[in-house]
């Protein structure tokens, strides 16, 4: 039954009741409690009068949301209501709290929020004074805390009010910011905080120009000349954030840094007369007195609030990296998104990404804002919503920018952000799902084109990004009945399994199955794809190899299985293991622990095959035995991984999980997992094409780096005691060394493949077992792996390396000095930090 039916039924029941009881819970509730209430109070119901304070909040928060009301009128109404009630302290406090929160949470609305103050200033300049003071207070706090996003947004609000400022207005602070950036840059060639400051300057200029008008042009040109040196420079660290390697036949889009593009775009704007036509504009009201006569008075002007940029600048809670501009649709034949030469591309991108980041706690609201994108920019900026891509060619003399493409482009730029996404990737997954739910007909085709685009360049894309993409793709399809036009990739099925496109298909299907089950996924695919799903994937319980008497130690394997299942005493299990050892020694096997470990771990996997909880409890039961094995023999240690993966070869996702848990038990060390994956299992390098191998290695690395960051964080605690410092430093040094060793094992191994120097690769290509073509494919995989792990290693060095930690410590001691600002009450900086991602590193 649908909701609508329920409602209809409810209403009918209220009118003529006792027409037979329906057995639903609501109904039964009503009989007992609501019967008398229903008709009673409703008769005397007085019309509800919304308190002014609530009305103001509601109208403020919904400004520009409506497609039928003019935001300008809304702004005037709010300004009037606010002006009339401004003297009520509680009301104005509440209003400005909401107002500032709106500025930092809903960036699309900053120009409209500024319009309210702009209009309010005409009748009551005190309102504007109050708004400026309160915003400045918050701005100083976020600046001191290095919260750059919030700082940028508050600054944008000021920029939108540029016409109300005496003197240079917002340019005063832009100039100061630039000076700080220069100081930072000259101190460190890889400084990214200075870059961030310049980016903020460049993103503020357009808004200030639209508000301030032509009197600023000379200053802007001067500022742009200065920023050019910083913005057009290429930092060594920038190589870390490039999305494509640029080796393949299909030429992927070239790399652009956000800051470099901004600089070029603004210089272009300078030549064409500063149009910024996408930014919303507001007409200057003609002030009138009560009799309707126009008054000649100019608006009251305000001094720009005093903001102090701290020295040294607080780099903020998160490590910063240069930012690449990633676009799926840019610079194509038909312009469905603004080209990379157009400032609109970065104005949209910046506002959309900030909306996504700031409101991650309500993806439904974000989805709605994104679908309504065209409400928040100057009219005619976009083509009509939902216009099909094919129809863009027919649009004459108007914008062909598709709001859906602009949105999808922005969300993907976040999924593909290097080195790390701002939020957990699953946020972007569910956000895309949300936009699809709100406007399926508009979004789905854009998404389809996005998927095709990525697939086309998948050979050349950074390997980490490919893995993010396949993870999104499979998860996304799982939310939409696994529907995809698989037929169009049919030709790629004929490729070698070593080809990146084929590898993508194999991994994608495996991931789909992990979220669902093999039979279901098979039913969603053309038959040609069925070969990619082995029969083994249908089995809930994989075969136990010792059931086959041809398997060495079959009898002992079976005995072990029974003993483990029945939780036999340790001595009995040891006896079976001893038998294996004796036999193995007779056969001349060097490390007898290897076959016994294989039998033990395979048996544990099989007994625990029902679920992850089952296998965990089995592992827990044999924990001491497993621990002692891994302490005694390197080969046996690696055999643990081999046996888990061997047992679950058809469902490698389960193996990845079990290995992960074995790391938690410390039965396995991270280096063991990596050595098994990239030495024992490497083969000629075929392992590098397997999605789950990448997953296993990168999960292991993440586990190590997370721990590393936690230790560094412990060192950076304020007020830590001297003896603690010594202890933490010791751990830090030790763990740092093992982290570096781990990275080196990975790098050495994949580098050998990349250079064609790995033994098995040479052997197999020499013997003709591998074609020259396949060998070339494998070497390319080696290069891609290498790029990923070199980057990861560098990123970690920039966070937990000696230099990085020392730099943080210096800042910490600078902060401890009296320069610290007194905390103002009621501003919520601390409360916000407690809510969000407050990791220090």
């Amino acid at each position, binding site marked *: *039954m649908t909701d609508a039916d329920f409602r209809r039924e409810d209403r009918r029941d209220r009118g003529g009741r006792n027409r*037979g*009881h*329906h*057995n*639903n*819970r609501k109904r039964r509730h009503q009989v007992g409690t609501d019967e008398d209430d229903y008709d009673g109070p409703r008769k005397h119901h007085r019309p509800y009068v919304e308190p002014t304070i609530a009305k103001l909040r509601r109208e403020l*928060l919904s400004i520009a949301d409506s497609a039928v009301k003019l935001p300008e009128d809304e702004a005037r109404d709010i300004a009037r209501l606010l002006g009339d009630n401004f003297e009520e302290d509680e009301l104005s406090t509440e209003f400005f*709290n*909401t107002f500032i*929160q*709106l500025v930092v*949470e*809903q960036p699309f609305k900053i120009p409209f929020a500024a319009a309210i103050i702009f209009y309010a200033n005409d009748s009551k300049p005190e309102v504007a004074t109050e708004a400026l003071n309160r915003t400045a207070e918050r701005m100083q706090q976020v600046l001191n805390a290095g919260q750059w996003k919030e700082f940028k947004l508050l600054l944008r609000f000021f920029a939108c009010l540029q016409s109300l400022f005496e003197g240079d207005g917002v340019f005063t602070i832009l100039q100061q910011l630039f000076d700080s950036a220069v100081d930072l840059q000259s101190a460190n060639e890889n400084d990214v905080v200075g870059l961030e400051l310049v980016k903020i300057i460049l993103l503020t200029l357009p808004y200030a120009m639209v508000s301030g008008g032509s009197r600023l042009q000379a200053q802007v040109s001067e500022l742009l000349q200065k920023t050019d040196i910083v913005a057009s420079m290429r930092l060594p660290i920038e190589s870390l954030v490039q999305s494509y390697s640029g080796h393949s036949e299909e030429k992927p889009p070239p790399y652009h840094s956000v800051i470099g593009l901004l600089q070029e775009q603004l210089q272009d704007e300078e030549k064409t007369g500063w149009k910024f036509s996408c930014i919303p504009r507001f007409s200057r009201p003609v002030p009138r007195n009560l009799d309707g006569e126009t008054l000649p008075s100019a608006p009251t002007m305000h001094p720009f609030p005093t903001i102090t940029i701290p020295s040294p600048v607080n780099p903020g809670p998160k490590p910063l990296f240069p930012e690449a501009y990633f676009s799926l649709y840019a610079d194509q034949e038909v312009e469905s998104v603004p080209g990379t030469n157009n400032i609109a591309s970065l104005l949209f991108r910046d506002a959309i990404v900030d909306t996504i980041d700031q*409101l*991650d*706690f*309500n*993806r*439904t*609201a974000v989805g709605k804002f994104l679908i309504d994108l065209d409400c928040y920019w100057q009219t005619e900026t976009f083509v009509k919503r939902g216009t099909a891509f094919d129809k863009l060619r027919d649009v004459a003399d108007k914008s062909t920018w598709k709001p859906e493409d602009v949105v999808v482009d922005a969300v993907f730029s976040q999924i593909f952000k290097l080195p790390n996404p701002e939020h*957990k*990737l*699953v*946020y972007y*997954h*569910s956000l895309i*799902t949300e936009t699809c739910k709100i406007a399926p007909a508009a979004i789905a085709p854009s998404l389809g084109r996005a998927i095709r685009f990525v697939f086309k360049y998948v050979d050349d894309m950074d390997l980490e990004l490919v893995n993010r993409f396949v*993870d999104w793709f499979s*998860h996304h399809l*799982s*939310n939409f*009945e696994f529907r995809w036009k698989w037929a169009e990739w049919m030709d790629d099925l004929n490729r070698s399994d070593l080809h990146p496109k084929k590898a993508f298909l194999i991994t994608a299907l495996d991931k789909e199955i*992990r*979220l*669902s*089950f093999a039979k279901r996924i098979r039913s969603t695919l053309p038959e040609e794809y069925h070969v990619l799903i082995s029969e083994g994937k249908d089995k809930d319980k994989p075969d136990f190899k010792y059931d086959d008497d041809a398997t060495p130690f079959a009898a002992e394997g079976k005995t072990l299985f029974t003993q483990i299942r029945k939780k036999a005493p340790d001595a009995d299990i040891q006896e079976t293991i001893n038998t294996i050892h004796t036999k193995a020694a007779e056969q001349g096997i060097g490390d007898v622990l290897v076959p016994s470990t294989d039998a033990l771990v395979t048996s544990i996997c099989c007994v625990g095959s029902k*679920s*992850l*909880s089952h296998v965990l409890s089995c592992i827990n039961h044999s924990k001491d035995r497993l621990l002692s094995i891994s302490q005694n023999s390197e080969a046996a240690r690696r055999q643990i991984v081999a046996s888990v993966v061997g047992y679950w070869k058809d469902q490698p*996702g*389960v193996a990845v*999980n079990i290995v*992960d848990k074995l790391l938690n038990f410390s039965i396995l060390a991270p280096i063991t997992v990596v050595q098994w994956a990239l030495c024992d299992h490497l083969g000629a390098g075929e392992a590098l094409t397997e999605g789950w191998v990448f997953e296993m290695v990168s999960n292991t690395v993440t586990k190590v780096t997370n721990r590393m960051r936690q230790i560094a964080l412990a060192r950076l605690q304020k007020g830590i005691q001297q003896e603690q410092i010594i202890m933490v430093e010791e751990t830090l040094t030790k763990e740092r060394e093992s982290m570096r060793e781990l990275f080196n094992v990975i790098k050495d191994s994949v580098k050998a493949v990349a250079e064609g120097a790995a033994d098995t690769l040479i052997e197999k290509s020499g013997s003709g077992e591998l074609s020259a073509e396949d060998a070339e494919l494998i070497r390319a995989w080696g290069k891609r792996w290498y790029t990923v792990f070199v980057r990861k290693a560098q990123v970690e060095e920039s966070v937990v390396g000696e230099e990085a930690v020392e730099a943080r410590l210096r800042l910490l001691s600078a902060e401890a000095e009296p320069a610290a600002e007194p905390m103002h*009450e*009621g*501003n*919520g900086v*601390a*409360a*916000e930090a407690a809510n969000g*991602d407050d990791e220090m590193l």
Partner: protein
Amino acid sequence: MAPIRNTVDRLDRPSSYAASKNRRRKHNRDGDEDRRERSPELDEKLKDATTLYVGNLSFYTTEEQIHELFAKCGEIKRLVMGLDRFQKTPCGFCFVEYYTHQDALDCMKYIGGTKLDERIIRTDLDEGFAEGRQYGRGKSGGQVRDEYRREYDPGRGGYGRALDEDTEGDMYR
């Protein structure tokens, strides 16, 4: 310091169900003293909650599937399947425990209301799993919610079981 009110609702708050469950409990206990104490206690309990209740699962959804989805929000410490009290088979809910409170909040924000095994699942912050809690509380041994369900749901054992028993008679009396 008064916490800042966000401009849109947050999805990482406990649902009205968690709150109402708490209210019901208060109601049964009666006495105003009790009432005054309980509510902050709930807030206090959920303040650092790392566990989520997950509902509306198919009876056939496996631990592995749940793990695959929920690990996208962080490493899972423990996963406890909800079982039918009598048959000891999954009855459509589970508890997922993370290592950190933030992961649990992120799960509310990013996973609650999305699909797993082609069903929209519900997540709610939970005060924590205690031994014995993994069983359904309905008369039939499954979840109460299921007993009163009116739609046929093949993923959750067909029609609600209570419908054919007690309430059915009620209707025609």
